[in-house]
């Protein structure tokens, strides 16, 4: 566990930027972070805003975050250069549980690859690793892993044409026995992964995303049913998901208003 003092606000400079593709970039920082795959940090760009980002790369003295350009903040973030200043707080959250035994599978959708990357690096070589993206160029970290990846794209420009859930079902129906599925990606995708797992009695762990303020379980901005995403999560197992009425249905806006997930995703932070 990280102690609370480890989580104090500190300032870091971007050590290196790696442009992944048109809308994704990875920012590297030289800083020893006490970290577990699936945890996140709050990233402050002075004068702009502060948002949660998962740690997508971690070594003894470095770490990185991978950002998908969506709105004002993330566009600023991928436009940053070596030497630029950001504040970080964290790491926060529980992270993935990697102690479980047996055959594992990882299912990543788009930028959902980010939290899963350091996890994959900690898993056995025989892990089933499914990764989907819009097109070939949106495949993150193409040459990074030792574990073989099964790819799929929306347009078929790389690997299977179609959804990650197709590939997951194919594995299962082809007789592969799975003991744990880790997934991150759009919530609707994760929901379907969860449903498939439930149907086949496979435990799974999903990493949720909600609007956050404090990151440490006090302000309530990120509550999702009975769960506090920033502290009890962001990773939730099957037992919690079964009881989570809000999973794939509802989320809170910045004002605290509870809305349908579709409305949440079409809301732009002002």
């Amino acid at each position: 566990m990280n102690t609370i003092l480890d989580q104090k606000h500190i300032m870091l400079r971007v050590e290196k930027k790696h442009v992944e593709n048109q809308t994704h970039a990875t920012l590297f920082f030289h800083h020893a972070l006490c970290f577990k795959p699936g945890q996140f940090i709050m990233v402050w760009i002075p004068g702009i805003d502060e948002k949660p980002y998962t740690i997508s790369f971690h070594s003894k003295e470095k770490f990185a975050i991978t950002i998908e350009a969506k709105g004002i903040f993330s566009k600023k973030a991928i436009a940053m250069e070596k030497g630029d200043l950001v504040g970080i707080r964290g790491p926060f959250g529980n992270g993935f549980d990697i102690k479980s035994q047996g055959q594992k599978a990882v299912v990543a959708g788009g930028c959902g690859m980010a939290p899963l990357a350091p996890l994959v690096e900690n898993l056995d070589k025989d892990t089933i690793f499914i990764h989907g993206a819009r097109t070939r160029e949106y495949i993150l970290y193409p040459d990074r892993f030792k574990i073989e990846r099964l790819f799929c794209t929306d347009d078929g420009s790389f690997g299977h044409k179609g959804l990650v859930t197709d590939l997951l079902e194919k594995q299962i129906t082809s007789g592969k026995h799975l003991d744990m599925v880790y997934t991150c990606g759009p919530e609707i995708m994760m929901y379907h992964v969860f449903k498939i797992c439930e149907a086949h009695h496979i435990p799974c762990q999903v990493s949720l995303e909600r609007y956050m303020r404090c990151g440490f379980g006090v302000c309530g901005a990120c509550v999702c049913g009975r769960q506090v995403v920033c502290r009890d999560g962001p990773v939730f197992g099957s037992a919690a998901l079964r009881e989570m009425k809000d999973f794939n249905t509802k989320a809170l806006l910045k004002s605290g208003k509870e809305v349908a997930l579709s409305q949440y995703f079409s809301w732009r932070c002002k």
Partner: protein
Amino acid sequence: MTIQFLGKTLKNPMVLASGILGNNCDILERVHENGCGLVTMKSIGPEPRDGHKNPSVIDLGHGMINAVGLPSPGVLNMENEWDDLKNRNFPLIASVYGGSVREYQIVAEFVSLKKPDFIEINISCPNSEKHGMIFGVNPQSSHDVVSAVKKVIKVPLIVKLTPQALDIGEVASACEDAGANAICAINTVGPGMVIDIESKMPVLAFKRGGLSGPMIKPVAIRCVFDVYKAVNIPIIGLGGITTGKDAIEIIMAGASLVGIGSAIRYRGIDVFKKVALEMETWLKDHDLCMEEIIGAAHREG
């Protein structure tokens, strides 16, 4: 440690502070299950309000600073929440705020129809340009808003005060005169500011924010002490309470119930259970009961 408070029975004297977690019915229920006798909803305002940009809550090690800025769906946009809360199995405080006496009245009247067990008016939030704080620093304006709200609600009224008042006892007494049924003290201290020297910028987007957590406990103790001297209505004491001993201390200053907010950060959502148990143990070891120690620091010496 069952306790009577304004005609209701609470399972223990622990209270969830407003603005902490209380964003939906499910989480309020979970806090209740984790040993909290009385839970408070996040403060409800007249209009939808996003609150301030991030960073809006920062930990400082010995406490935290926040300028969440009173985000609220707005009193008219919470039908789902009220529906969920209708069948609750726990006692509830609804916290309300406004920008004028009239707004407090409108919000409180509407909320009263939803039948929370108590209404708390937050006349003490430092994190908004115009809401709340201006009332709580002045006995006359506090009196005005309390008597206006009392006229339109059907549940007991708690008034939440700010330590920034020059004489918090005087403000509390004005609230009592105006009909308040209980006082809640204190809201956050300061405001304060943290500047990041690398970027040369205040870290909070709103620049300034209220302090909470362990570092404000001495201010909370003094305020509750002053309020207890000034009024005869019960006090919900809060501000930095983190352990059973902290709870005993604020009760000796004069509190009947003990609120917890920031300590969830340091001890988890079951901090209520932990603190209640620590209190019980301390009381047993000292052969004392709750009633005997309320305001005890006023009697000795």
